[in-house]
């Protein structure tokens, strides 16, 4: 560096200021300009400084713990945080590509206001103030004309949507949704009904922090698993549960057997001892046959037949009722094959598996302890009948004694740390409102206007986002609760981190409803706001786009699906680039704009005065951590009373810096804070235990009865609500022939499956392929805007089968849009694209080879186009497409956008009118198609 002294070269101080002034002045985009150093400027001292920040990923909802190094304020390296047991130092390609998210030239940089028609993608730059005022004024207009419930807030597919929910609950709408609604709710239904939980995972998270006999805490790295059965679950490619891929390998090395049941020879099957290529949509058939086999052949006095561990009868209710109902089907014959339900022959006929294999699987699962039966998010949760699968799967794990035992299964939702409390749910549930229904003024709670639970989906415990185009189109008709008979339209849609226009099961309908106009020419949905870092398809329809700070530029909390309470911090690694803002800032800014526009529901004490800093918001949530009871073996805290709720930092709990409230049964240590997490490698880990469901003093079971319920109290309550409101049967229950929600074992067939549902049998010949989706971790809705991830191939679903392409720049001039001569060639075979995986023998029969372009057509006449990947790794008669990955029509997707015409969207071919009967989940995996060569 040259030894330049400013004083030497620049004259008097006025001139020096002038020279600096030139640099610093300019338009608002550069309003902050620059500053000059002085020799004593502290920033001089940190030049070149290397800093380590512990944070967590949010490029996908796996949220792995990360250790990020910055040099001189610029992100330098990204590694996994070895202190977070969830990923224990590992990180995937997507996680390590975060630099290309933050420093992506095409990310959203400034607030934008639409200048063209919705869908055209024409915008102008706006200031935050102008954008916030625009949004607030329209929200107030909607509130005045139709009520706040006419606005839907969709928090999208990241878990830190809490500030947005808070804003919209206080605004007054009960309609806050999130991605969980279209992720895998059928998969969660069984755990939800039986134990009040959500996600059953194998006990594979290591290390586990375990209390030792001498009272110390030690990291335990041992794997106790003996058998893991993955059904439609592919942790090596598709999952968000990081520890399952490395854990499965480790458990296998330790002697565990692994069985994979999947129509595709997926990457997990590669590691398995056995692969069973099941027909899509028949997972409950397999589970029902396993359960029948186990109930029939169980013999407690024969160690070779001792399948059932009857201990579950002590901590459950309703088993006799469930078993009786299940057995009552055994004598009935299935009209499809004239075989008795749930028999081995019946299951073999339907699943396409061999009866002996099914018997062996049931027997092996029954006698091997500990074992884990795991069913998938994508494979089973995306079938219409995934609800049946998850109930049977839960039952199988519980009655065989594998629930919450070492090496068995753990319902991670029941043991994770608490981080709830400030999203405004309590506020909206308690808010008293009046509405005029059929000429009468009715008083109720805002929550009673919630569009799902009081409308078409009274039992949807996670919302029914996939069915929303219907509500946009026809309005909401409240059928249950005090406001039964009330109707309201949907007039506002605020979507953050979600992309229904490309990833919903009804993409055509989303386009239709978001662009629908009144006779006057005005859009029916009066306000659409899109908030994200990437510019995805839904952004094309927005009136206002707000640039959100990327996950390295904001804070948040992570506690994803661990086996023990773990809480780790998403910390700001670098300050937001351009004019992006974090979600707390956006919440406060919009809250202030609403207040200024005259909204008296929004006050400073609940927003900008309460959360002066971003950190204030997250610290408030951390006060609830870990919030779990002191139960299980070994007891997490033998120094404290068993069954008491534990709160506070791990070190304060260890050193007994606590107060104990014996009335409330709470042990309160020092509250956890972001500052504490920063000082402790970004993570708090509390002790692991097993057998936590058995504690008499208040275990982890979260049903109303605090016992495992084989008689479903949750659905009993919904039936009661329906009866009290006049008894209108929800339309999807009618479709499957039920007059009320089932309260014990139930069975119904999946849709669009000619092999198991006689209603669709006549499609078998003309539409010979079952269409399913296969999730590839690095090619999801938003990921390909990082070009690097677009190049990585995966599992015969995402392959470098691109055609050569000259990218023609298109320009706008006085004549309109004009296409110019070529400037860039993308060579064939250099770029991975979404493809259609087809069995090689099927391809031969149709005269197709890999790379051939085909059209897929469904019985409704809908089509999509894509290239064939002829593969031995898929069951004949089945086609697999990565969900939401093809036909990407936003230029925000980078090079993937160039291949929108030759990549398939399976989402276009689904039946938008059929969502799972109880949970309201879109049926992503149920369709039949024919293949037409292009």
């Amino acid at each position, binding site marked *: 560096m*040259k030894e*330049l002294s400013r004083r*030497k*070269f*620049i*004259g008097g101080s*006025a*001139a020096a200021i*002038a*020279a*600096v*002034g*030139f*640099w*610093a*002045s*300019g*338009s*608002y*985009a*550069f*309003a*902050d*300009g*620059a*500053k*000059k*150093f002085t020799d004593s400027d502290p*920033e001089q001292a940190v030049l070149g400084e290397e800093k380590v920040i512990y944070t967590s990923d949010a490029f996908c909802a796996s949220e792995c713990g990360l250790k990020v190094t910055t040099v*001189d304020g*610029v992100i330098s390296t990204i590694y996994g945080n070895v202190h977070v047991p969830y990923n224990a130092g590992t990180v995937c390609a997507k996680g390590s590509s975060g630099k290309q998210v*933050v*420093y*992506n*030239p*095409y990310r959203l*940089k400034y607030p934008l206001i639409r*200048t063209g028609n919705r869908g055209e*993608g*024409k915008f*102008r*730059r706006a200031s935050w103030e102008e954008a916030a005022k625009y949004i607030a004024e329209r929200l107030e207009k909607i509130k005045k004309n139709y009520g706040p419930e006419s606005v839907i807030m969709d928090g999208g597919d990241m878990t830190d949507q809490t500030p947005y929910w808070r804003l919209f609950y206080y605004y007054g709408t009960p309609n806050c949704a999130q991605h969980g609604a279209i992720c895998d709710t059928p998969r969660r239904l069984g755990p939800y009904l039986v134990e009040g939980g959500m996600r059953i995972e194998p006990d594979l998270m290591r290390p586990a922090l375990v209390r030792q006999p001498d009272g110390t805490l030690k990291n335990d790295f041992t794997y106790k698993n003996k058998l893991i059965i993955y059904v439609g679950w592919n942790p090596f490619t598709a999952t968000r549960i990081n520890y399952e891929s490395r854990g499965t390998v480790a458990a296998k090395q330790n002697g565990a057997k692994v069985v994979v049941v999947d129509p595709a020879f997926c990457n997990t099957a590669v590691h398995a001892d056995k692969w069973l290529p099941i027909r899509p949509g028949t997972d409950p058939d397999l589970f029902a046959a396993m359960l029948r086999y186990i109930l029939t052949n169980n013999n407690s006095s024969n160690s070779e037949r001792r399948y059932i561990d009857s201990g579950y009868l002590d901590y459950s209710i309703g088993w006799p009722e469930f078993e009786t109902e299940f057995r009552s089907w055994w004598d009935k014959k299935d009209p499809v094959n004239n075989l008795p339900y749930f028999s081995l022959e019946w299951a073999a006929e339907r699943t396409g598996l061999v009866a002996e294999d099914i018997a062996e699987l049931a027997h092996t699962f029954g006698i091997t302890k500990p074992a884990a039966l795991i069913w998938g998010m994508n494979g089973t949760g995306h079938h219409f009948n995934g609800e049946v699968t998850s109930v049977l799967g839960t039952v199988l794990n519980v009655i065989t004694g594998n629930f919450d035992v070492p090496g068995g299964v753990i319902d991670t939702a029941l043991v994770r740390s608490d981080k709830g409390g400030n999203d405004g749910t309590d506020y909206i549930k308690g808010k008293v409102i009046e509405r005029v229904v059929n000429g009468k003024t009715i008083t109720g709670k805002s929550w009673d206007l919630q569009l799902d639970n009081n409308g078409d989906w009274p039992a949807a415990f996670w919302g029914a986002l996939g069915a929303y185009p219907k509500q946009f189109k026809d309005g909401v008709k409240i059928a249950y609760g005090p406001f039964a008979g009330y109707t309201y339209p949907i007039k506002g849609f605020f979507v953050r981190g979600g992309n229904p226009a490309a990833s919903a099961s009804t993409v055509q309908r989303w386009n239709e409803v978001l662009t629908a106009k009144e006779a006057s020419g005005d859009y029916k949905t009066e306000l659409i706001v899109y908030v994200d870092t990437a*510019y995805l398809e839904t952004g094309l329809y927005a009136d206002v*786009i707000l640039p959100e700070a990327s996950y390295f530029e904001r804070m948040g909390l992570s506690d994803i699906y661990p086996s023990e309470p773990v809480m780790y911090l998403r910390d700001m690694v670098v*300050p*937001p680039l*351009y004019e*992006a803002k974090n979600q707390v800032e956006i919440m406060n800014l919009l809250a202030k704009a609403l207040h200024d526009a005259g909204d008296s529901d929004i006050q400073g004490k609940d927003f900008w005065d309460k959360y002066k800093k971003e950190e204030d918001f997250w610290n408030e949530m951390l006060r609830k951590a870990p919030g779990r009871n002191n139960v299980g073996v070994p007891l997490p805290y033998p120094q404290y009373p068993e069954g008491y709720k534990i709160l506070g930092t791990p070190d304060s709990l260890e050193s007994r810096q606590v107060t104990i409230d014996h009335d409330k049964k709470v042990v309160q240590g020092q509250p956890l804070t972001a500052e504490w997490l920063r000082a402790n490698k970004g993570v708090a880990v509390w002790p692991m235990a097993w057998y936590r469901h058995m504690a008499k003093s208040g275990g982890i079971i979260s049903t109303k009865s605090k016992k495992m319920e084989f008689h479903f109290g949750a659905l009993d309550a919904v039936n009661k609500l329906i009866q009290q409101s006049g008894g209108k049967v929800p339309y999807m229950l009618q479709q499957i022939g039920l007059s009320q929600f089932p309260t014990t074992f139930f069975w119904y067939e999946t849709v669009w499956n000619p092999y198991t549902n006689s209603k669709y049998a006549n499609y078998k010949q003309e539409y010979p392929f079952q269409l399913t989706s296969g999730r590839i971790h690095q090619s999801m809705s938003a990921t390909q805007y990082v070009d690097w991830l677009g190049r990585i191939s995966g599992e015969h679903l995402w392959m470098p089968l691109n055609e050569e392409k000259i990218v023609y*720049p298109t*320009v*706008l*001039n*006085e004549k309109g849009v004009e296409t*110019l001569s070529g*400037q860039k060639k993308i060579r064939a075979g250099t770029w991975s694209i979404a493809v259609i995986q087809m069995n090689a023998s099927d391809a031969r029969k149709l005269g197709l080879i890999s790379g051939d372009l085909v059209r897929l057509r469904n019985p409704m006449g809908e089509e999509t186009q894509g290239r064939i990947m002829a593969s031995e790794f898929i069951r004949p008669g089945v086609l697999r497409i990565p969900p939401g990955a093809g036909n990407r029509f*936003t*230029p*925000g*997707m980078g090079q993937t*956008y160039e291949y929108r015409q030759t990549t398939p969207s399976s989402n276009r071919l689904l039946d938008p009118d059929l969502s799972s009967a109880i949970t309201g989940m879109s049926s992503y995996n149920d369709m039949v198609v024919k293949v037409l060569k292009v």
Partner: protein
Amino acid sequence: MKPSQREGVKEIMQAMAYKDTMVGEELERLQLLRELFTAVPDEELLGRLVKQAEHDEAFQRLARLAREETKEILAAEWMRLFEGPGRFPVVLFGSYYLDGGKLMESSTLATRQFYRQYGMEPVANIPADHLAYELGFLGYLTASADMAVDAGGREEFLAARSEFLYRFMLAWTTKMVRVLRESTTIPFFLELGELLLFVIQQMEQKSM
């Protein structure tokens, strides 16, 4: 753009009485170019372009071409070319061209290091090699050379300017303008690219 935010520049120019000097003209050119590459040109900026053209021949064609387009077309094309949203064709950050399509890479850091040698640090949250910053830095070096208390200081700043142009700006702006030429048919934007190259190439020659 708010007029008040431009006041600083105006005042500086007046205080330094640069208006009629050669350095003053260079600074005015840089400032105008910088703003044209920062945001959609509004009426106030286009008015200043017309004024600049009155005494600066190099800007006459651009001013004339601006008049030939409607304000809406200029705005829409500016957004399409430089800002998006989405995959817009012309990226205005140096490292995009110097580091294989990525931002905040080694060339960005080298640019920032160069600024720092002269006591400058961009603090707006935009990578340091945005064209507008680099033009601003050129202006800073130009003004600093002019105000240096002795000939040695002046030479040092001019040499720095030359080095900055050679090592950083010319290396990528020529590529950027090539992309711009292929990405638009609107004469105003084609001319804007040529004018940028003309102005900085002229400065490079002067620095030699």
